[in-house]
């Protein structure tokens, strides 16, 4: 089955990104396809490569990057939400790309299910 995933909140401050990651990983492990992970609202902060969590904590940004590379995921960051919040190519972590909101709607059309994680 084809899943699209929407992440509405940034790393650490809310659990949304953690939950989305665990869901995504489980879906991939089960053989499902994840057509796109879309980062909107404060969710764009998940793409900030400058994030440097404490050594005993998970690295939310790097974890998304690695999952993206490993599975060829499309990690799409909304350009409008990102501009507002200072998330641009300058600070984009590997595996993420800046795209438009149209990519979210497209994902909603193409996927069998769109699952939202937010506050």
């Amino acid at each position, binding site marked *: 089955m084809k899943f699209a995933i929407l992440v509405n909140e940034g790393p650490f401050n809310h659990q949304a990104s953690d939950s989305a990651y665990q869901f995504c990983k489980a879906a991939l492990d089960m053989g499902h396809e994840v057509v796109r992970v879309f980062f*909107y609202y404060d969710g764009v902060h998940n793409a900030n490569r400058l994030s440097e969590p404490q050594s005993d904590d998970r690295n939310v940004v790097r974890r998304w990057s690695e999952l993206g590379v490993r599975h060829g995921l499309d990690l799409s960051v909304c350009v409008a939400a990102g501009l507002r919040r200072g998330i641009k190519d300058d600070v984009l972590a590997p595996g993420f790309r800046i795209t*438009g*909101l*149209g990519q979210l*709607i*497209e994902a*909603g*059309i193409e996927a069998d299910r769109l699952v*939202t994680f937010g506050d």
Partner: protein
Amino acid sequence: MSEEATVKKFMYLNRKAPHGTIYALEVLEMILVAAMFDQDVHVCFADDGVYELKKGQDAKGALEMKDFVTTYRALDGYDIEKLYAEKESLEERGLTAADLVVPVEVIDRAAMAALIDSMDVVLSA
């Protein structure tokens, strides 16, 4: 069925008050983009979401924040015509359809529940 032929029922479900958080504004940006795809778009307002449509808002004059509420009036021009507000949510807040910036269909909670249940994609905030 070809990609072009896919028409899904999309709902944009607004449950948050405007200005205190950005969700109302960024959902609206989402709806404007969604209008460019030929999908069956439903825009719903329930709980504090009904406050988004209150007449007379002046975020810029009062607080230098962005006045985005007038954009709801432009939705008609984008062929987005299915707007619904929940009756119970309006009543709890002392509002009626006459207080709102755009004409909406006021439906009761049971009808809202049935509408939600009929959707293919629900985008909520």
